[in-house]
């Protein structure tokens, strides 16, 4: 079952094509990795899907519904949650409060106590147990990422867009993050994931998509993509 | 009647442009929203008034006023604006709002609430049946010459270019070796100069009162937003547009409703085109 279908999506800024005629599908329950050099348009693609930018052309269909022109908060409520490349959180609120925001406004829980309980559970799930009452601005970068992720999970998403999780993690943290992603997938959440650490992406993704200069240049199973000539060219700059 | 209003509007527009340019420069270079711009001009107007009353010499009055306003603005820059640069935007509004109160009520205490005007009257000329006030014409001439000089400065001299660079992209400008602090002082000095000359022009047309500043500030903001924050040519164009809207409205529906109309026009512009006609985005 296809959960997200993107057709011929394009976005220009001035004279530059950030995203150029990109089409792909995401299957329900899969982990789709998105890789590509810096500036290839990956984050812009996320911004288009999450509603931050409006595409110049093309369509985005989520669970059968056209969300191309919808506003971010509407898209959230339909079931897409995302994290940001430069980690974002509400600095003046505690970890728990951050997650509660996601729970109430994304997850649709009206009762504050229920939201609080749910949020505590999610904090535990991602590994932030015991830090719930810390103001976010006092957290380490890693914990901030986990908070952002927890907030996204509290929104009860069907599709989770993760923009770079592994940056700055040491090997132990990387393993933990990979395990966390698997646990999220076991909850039935589809994951679409931008990542620079190829090893991690190849390790758990079901499929991988590669972008360069705003275009999709390859798509398929990890072992296929990694051995694809064009992908090697993109990363290593030419045949050798 | 309308033609007269139109011409008066043009003449007034010239002076408005000067007021708006000062405000715009301050924002473009120093990135400060100065709510008290009109109050500075009001001070200038009092300066012109008192020195003229004492010396009966308009040139002297103008000279002294302008040469006092420039250091005054630099002082404000160092004492107040510098501290506001890193602070959240609300602090700028509060501090300059506080300046509005401090300056206008300070003026009230020192000089009283009576209206004053320069006892300098100019004839009213009649051209093809239309009455034109010579004082407005003179004010317009001064303002436009000043605007022209400003243009020449900005486009034909090195410091001027540096200022334009700062307005366009302050980070880039700094990388090119332009020192922000020096630019701030320069920009603020020019703002003081413009405010002083605007004060001279306005004394020719209006009576002076401690609270006239508010109107000028309001008009200045209308114009700057309409023309686009950071776009100096936009301010000039905007000045004429706003001036016409106001002058013609006041002939048609009276002064107060003219303010209401102009203000509603302003709100609409802010909503529909926050970057103005020629402005760049934030």
């Amino acid at each position, binding site marked *: 079952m296809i959960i997200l279908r993107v057709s011929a999506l394009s976005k220009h800024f001035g004279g530059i094509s950030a995203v150029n005629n990109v089409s792909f599908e995401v299957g329900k329950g899969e982990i789709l990795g998105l890789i590509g050099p810096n500036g290839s348009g990956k984050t812009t693609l996320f911004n288009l899907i999450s509603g931050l930018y409006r595409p110049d052309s093309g369509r985005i269909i989520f669970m059968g519904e056209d969300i191309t022109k919808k*506003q*971010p*908060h509407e898209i*959230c409520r339909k079931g897409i949650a*995302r994290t*940001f490349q430069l980690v*974002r959180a*509400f600095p003046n*609120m505690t970890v728990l*409060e951050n997650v509660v*925001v*996601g729970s*109430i*406004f*994304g997850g*649709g829980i009206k009762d*504050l106590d229920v*939201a609080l309980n749910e949020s505590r559970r999610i904090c535990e799930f991602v590994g932030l147990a015991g830090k719930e009452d810390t103001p976010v601005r006092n957290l380490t970068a890693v914990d901030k990422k986990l908070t952002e992720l927890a*907030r996204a999970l509290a*929104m009860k998403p069907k599709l989770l867009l993760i923009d770079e999780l592994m940056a700055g993690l040491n090997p132990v943290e990387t393993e933990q993050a990979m395990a966390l992603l698997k646990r999220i997938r076991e909850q039935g959440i589809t994951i679409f994931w931008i990542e620079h650490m190829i090893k991690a992406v190849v390790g758990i993704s079901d499929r991988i998509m590669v972008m360069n200069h705003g275009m999709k240049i390859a798509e398929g199973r990890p072992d296929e993509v990694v051995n694809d000539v064009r992908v090697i060219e993109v990363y290593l700059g030419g045949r050798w | 009647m309308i033609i007269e209003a139109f011409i008066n509007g043009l003449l007034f527009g010239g002076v408005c442009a000067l007021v708006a340019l000062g405000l715009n420069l301050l924002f473009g270079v120093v990135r400060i*929203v100065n709510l008290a711009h009109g109050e500075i001009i009001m001070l200038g107007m009092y300066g012109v008034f008192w020195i003229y009353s004492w010396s009966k010499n308009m040139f002297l009055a103008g000279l002294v006023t302008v040469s006092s306003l420039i250091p005054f603005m630099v002082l404000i820059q160092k004492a*107040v604006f510098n501290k*506001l640069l890193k*602070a959240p*935007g*609300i*602090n*700028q*509004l*509060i*501090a300059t*709002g*506080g*300046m*509005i*109160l*401090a300056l*206008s*009520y*300070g003026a*009230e*205490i020192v000089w009283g609430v009576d209206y004053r005007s320069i006892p300098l009257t100019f004839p009213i000329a009649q051209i093809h049946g239309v009455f034109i006030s010579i004082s407005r014409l003179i004010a317009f001439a001064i303002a436009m010459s000043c605007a022209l000089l400003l243009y020449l400065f900005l486009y034909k001299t090195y410091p001027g270019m540096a200022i334009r660079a700062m307005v366009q992209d302050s980070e880039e400008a700094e990388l090119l070796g332009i020192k922000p602090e020096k630019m701030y002082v320069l920009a603020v000095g020019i703002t003081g100069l413009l405010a002083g000359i605007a004060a001279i022009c306005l004394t020719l047309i209006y009576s002076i009162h*401690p609270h006239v500043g*508010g109107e000028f500030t*309001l008009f200045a*903001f*209308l114009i700057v*937003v309409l023309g686009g924050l950071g776009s100096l040519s936009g301010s000039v164009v905007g000045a004429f547009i706003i001036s016409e809207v106001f002058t013609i409205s006041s002939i048609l529906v*009276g002064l*107060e*409703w003219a*303010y*209401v109309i102009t*203000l*509603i026009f*302003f*709100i609409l512009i*802010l*909503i*529909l085109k926050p970057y103005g006609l020629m402005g760049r985005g934030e």
Partner: protein
Amino acid sequence: MAVNLFKKIKWNIIIAIIIMFLILPILPWRYLIHVLTLIFIFASASTYWSFMGRFGLVSLGHGAFFGLGAYTSSLLFNIYGLSPWIGMFIGGVFATSIAVIVGYPCFRYGVRGAYFSLVTLALSAAMMYTFSAMRGITGGLLGLTIRYEPGLLQFQFPEKYYYCYIAISFWLLSIYIWRRIEGGTFIYALKAMSDDEIFAEHSGIDLCKVKLQITMLSSFFTAICGTIYAQAISYINPEIAGITWSLEIAFIAILGGLYSMVGPLIGSAVYISFSEFVRVLLGSTLVGISHLMLGLLLIVFTIFLPGGIWGSIRTILFRRM
């Protein structure tokens, strides 16, 4: 430790107010009662202002709502004999409508920060000029006197302290409303919005709706403050809708500390007592001095003390921890 001291001070203020409540009828100084009434009216208006102000929606035009409330109830009473208790609500509805008409396009099209403040400034000036221009009905710049007709239904009382009671109660109401907001889910949206708008949007928060809701709340109650003022003073003029008045409402909250519940009250107490003191002492020679002082204080405060008076006290106390 410091937290307890802090809470104690807060409670002391509330108890002091309750005591004031009880001894008011006995106080022989009518002037003091008048000043207290003003203090609490302004404290209320500033508190309702801070509902918006503390989340980054800095309105420099709340006078528009204040004036609209005052003029609506007063005109309805003078012309049609409608009880100001009802006129009060109608004024509130008018104020909220204007807030929505102007606010919706602003919030929908992302007019924020200084631009938003400029819109509110313009609104306030427009409202003042409108009242001034409608001189046939409102008396223009000369102002409007409320028809004298004492009676509970007419919201007019023979003794001044009744107005003081009402002003104090209304201020307490603002605190109560704030507590209710803090205890619910709405506060999360507000805090999120003021921290990071884009992130808030991506958490499912409808920014436009949230901003509209808090603006409607703030404007409605500020208008009612206007009515209370009109009834207590029996005279209003277009100035109360204008920019100076709006700036005062905003600045009183900031002076006292806009992120706290009692901040606006403290700011109001300081500012109004000072203005009245100056007025009594120096007569009409230095009328503007309180405004001048407020202006100077604000400049100094934004540079050195961003938390206002109360915020600074709070910071000093917490530093001792």
